[in-house]
């Protein structure tokens, strides 16, 4: 089935976190978000509690999906990057390994050129992690955590 789930493990998440942290430093960006194409945030660096990362992730994914739709219509192979320039903060988005969106929010403390350069390196590193993750997910049996979920557990979720 197409809607195979994505699974994230401790080890890979910490690698992803490291890439995000490193990218934030190297590019002198404000915030890095790593978002799944369906709009769920996987990791971030430098996102303060005032930043609504959930909403941001969903909108970024919607944006990338819409742009992907445009690309398809004009028979362009997927656009891999997008850039929105603001007065104070700009956004750079890159599609990584066709399933992950790397988002960089940056201000005047850096340049678009530097961001692009660093993003390139980070994308390659991320690609590598997600490739390995896919292999691992396919070869690792799921812990039977879900097998143990009872109807009562599910009902309890709604009892408040």
């Amino acid at each position, binding site marked *: *089935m*197409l*809607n*195979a*789930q*994505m*699974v*994230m*493990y*401790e080890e890979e*998440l*910490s690698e992803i976190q490291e890439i995000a942290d490193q990218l934030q430093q190297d590019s002198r960006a404000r915030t890095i978000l790593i978002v*799944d*194409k*369906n*709009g*769920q945030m*996987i990791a971030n660096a430098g996102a303060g509690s005032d930043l*609504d990362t*959930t*909403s941001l992730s*969903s*909108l970024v994914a*919607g944006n990338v*999906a*819409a742009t*992907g*739709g445009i690309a398809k*219509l004009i028979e362009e192979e997927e656009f891999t990057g997008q850039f929105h320039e603001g007065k104070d903060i700009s956004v750079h988005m890159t599609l990584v390994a066709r399933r992950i969106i790397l988002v960089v929010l940056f201000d005047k403390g850096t340049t678009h050129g530097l961001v692009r350069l660093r993003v390139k390196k980070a994308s390659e590193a991320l690609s590598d992690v997600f490739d390995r993750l896919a292999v691992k997910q396919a070869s690792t*049996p*799921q*812990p039977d*955590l*879900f*097998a*143990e*979920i009872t109807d009562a*557990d*599910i*009902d*309890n*979720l*709604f009892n*408040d």
Partner: protein
Amino acid sequence: MSFINYSAREINCKLVYYGPGLCGKTTNLQFIYNKTRPDAKGKMISLATETERTLFFDFLPLSLGEIRGFKTRFHLYTVPGQVFYDASRKLILKGVDGVCFVADSQLERMEANIESLDNLRFNLQEQGYELDKLPYVVQYNKRDLPNAVPVEELREVLNPTGVPDYEACAVTGEGVFDTLKALAKQVLTELRKGQ
């Protein structure tokens, strides 16, 4: 596509409310939003036209609590119902874990319901999904209106496979949580079966 994060101990699932224009999809989400504790919800985002018609999607993130130490998060989306927004609807269906079809019970919306349901089936197939294999519920909305078609008739046309279905009045909230619970339950049950 559910996202299971063993590291953060989270389960993330995507639910999509589908149906013809003005059937009450956005109203469902608004009611859920208004009735959910602040700490269990994020912001509701509506990408709408100036006349409040959904342009791209509405989005509402919900945290339902924990199952076996895993936080369960549901991302609720609605699609724009108008026929000409088909390309956007396809995008929103990507990665869906469960679908709620919201039907407009009014007699004059019967055609629109049928058309939208066909469109749902078709758009899912195009992406390699089978509606009959997905967690799926049907909601007959606007039961409060005098021109509402009897439920038996709606069921015959819009729910031939007999999935769980609910009568609702989304403006007062009747049936709204029953519908959501039934869908969430199916999605979690699917996870349990899965793999």
